[in-house]
């Protein structure tokens, strides 16, 4: 009997705590700018090596692409594609706002991806090169406002509305569902100027690496098209590795 009462009290306590926490978040939410700053800080990577997998759901087939990426700060990244065989050996280098891809033999060519080419799809996925290149912190691009509280993936999330504070950003409005205990945007929606929903990103799984929460599996979806979108899996991530600087050079593309 005592045991039953104990269980009931524990459940009640959890619910009451959650309700109090939710009420507290709703009544005294952090400011939009603080939330964006916390997200930027949490997702910032100083130096890291990642192994990723991209699953692209196309009309008639599913493409899986695996890659290893060396990251140095917000602006430098070097990616080597490992799978499938037809993509193996392809490399991509990002230095600031410049991007190059290397196609191995028989082409053996380095192509600069610039201007409007950045708006093309990345390997047929729902992501564009431009989406991948966007390094600037959200705080510098958008004004944010908390507009509500919603439960998502069993987590209480603050709902933020972001409005561009600069001209020329790809998306004038965004909506974020932010888990305030992990500072992760579990869901993001990108809107056209007219208000039409264009893209949706959902973080399906998270993992804790060296004391911070990081997305493990994300789904990107172009909301105007059919299909299941593109899944992006971070299979492993190692922070604070010493990465030699020569990796982030054009010469490394042909090595």
């Amino acid at each position, binding site marked *: 009997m005592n045991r039953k009462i104990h269980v009931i009290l524990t459940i009640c306590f959890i619910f009451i705590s959650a309700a109090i926490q939710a009420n507290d978040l709703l009544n005294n939410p952090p400011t939009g700018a603080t939330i964006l700053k916390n997200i930027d800080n949490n997702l910032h990577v100083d130096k890291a090596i990642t192994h990723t997998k991209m699953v692209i759901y196309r*009309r008639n087939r599913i493409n899986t692409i695996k890659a290893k990426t060396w990251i140095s700060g917000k602006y430098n990244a070097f990616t080597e594609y490992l799978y499938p065989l037809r993509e193996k050996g392809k490399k991509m280098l990002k230095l600031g706002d410049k991007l190059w891809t290397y196609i191995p033999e028989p082409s053996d060519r380095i192509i600069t991806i610039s201007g409007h080419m950045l708006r093309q799809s990345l390997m047929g996925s729902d992501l564009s090169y431009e989406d991948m290149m966007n390094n600037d912190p959200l705080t510098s691009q958008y004004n944010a406002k908390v507009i509500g509280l919603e439960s998502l993936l069993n987590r209480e999330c603050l709902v933020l509305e972001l409005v561009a504070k600069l001209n*020329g950003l790809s998306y004038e409005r965004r909506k974020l569902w932010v888990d305030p205990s992990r500072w992760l945007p579990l869901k993001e929606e990108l809107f056209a100027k*007219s208000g039409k929903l264009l893209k949706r990103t959902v973080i399906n799984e998270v993992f804790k690496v060296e004391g911070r929460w990081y997305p493990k599996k994300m789904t990107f979806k*172009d909301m*105007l098209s*059919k299909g299941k979108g593109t899944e992006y899996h971070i299979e492993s991530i190692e922070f604070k590795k010493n990465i030699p600087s020569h990796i982030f050079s054009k010469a490394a593309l042909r090595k």
Partner: protein
Amino acid sequence: MLIFKLAYRNIKGAGIRTWLNVVVLSLAFVLIIFSQGMIDGMNEQIITTMQDTEIGGGQYWHHLFDPYDQFTIEDGHGELPVKLQELVNKRLATPMLWVPGSIFPDRRVQAVVLKGIDVDQTIIQLPSDKLKINDKNIIPALIGTRMAKQTKLKIGDFVTARWRDKDGTFDATDVKIVHIMSTLAPRMDSQQIWLPISTLRQMIDGKGHATVLTLKKDIGPVPIVDKWIHRDLNYLLKEIRALIKSKRVSTLIFYGILFGMGLLAIFDTQVLAIFHRKKEIGTLMALGMGRWSVISLFTLEGSLHGVLAYLLGAIYGVPLLVYTSTTGIPLPEITDEMGIAMGSTLYTRYGIPVLLATMLILFLTVVFISFLPTKSIVKLKPTDALRGKMA
């Protein structure tokens, strides 16, 4: 007259050999004239169609715009300068605005160019007036039959269009297909969707913007304007003229080979005739006929093949040429897929000076080829000829 009678009797006597030569030659004559007419017809038809449906009397392009580089379309537009706006106000030109974008028929992405056109324009043959609708909540769109086939869109369908404004920010809305036009120009149809230019300007936040300004046919001198490049008809038709020229050359090579075979047959006939008829040549010379008269006789015999070929060619060629210039030749769909503005039927065109010049050149070639083997007669002695010997 004697030479003519003798020549006629001789080629008539040659029987089937003569007719074989005549048939091959007539075939070559008719086909060469037909191919000239076909190329001229193609040239005229493409240029007329392009002028009517695409380029009018020339165009102005925004200085950053290059229609052959799709990456220039996004930035290749700007506000029309005053001098060009005056042409628009006087109805001597019509502006067009090109914006790269995507549409999602049946929620499948398709890259398109959103093209804005003045709904009241009359400069080019495009039913832009169909874009005039009363409902201000609907954005009307016009597509061509090829585009309708590619996207499976029908009149009354709504389709989502996505584009970027002049600063690069995404925007999207639904547009309604109000008309499906049939145009001879694939370049005004495939992978594009036409909207009222005023609406498209609002959509990209580009007041007064245009990419191309198409001028009225026969407009005369036009002003020079900073940052807008005038492209005259010579420039706009340069590629199509080069294409037609290369087509003309390749066609003439093909039929030239056929004509060469006919000429070879005449040459061969002449050589054999001179070889076999040495005694006849000797007799004619012994009877007092001069060397040049004998040469004329043989040359005339050869040339008569040409005359007969023309007569035979006229019997079946004239109806064929008249038929192809009035009823036309149905073209395969591939010409449309190649992006050539020509329509589904090609009408051949025969200019009298070109026709006469072609016939004269072909006939003179036959005469020359007939004459060539007869040169050996100059050196022939009548006594040797009578004995059947060549000099």
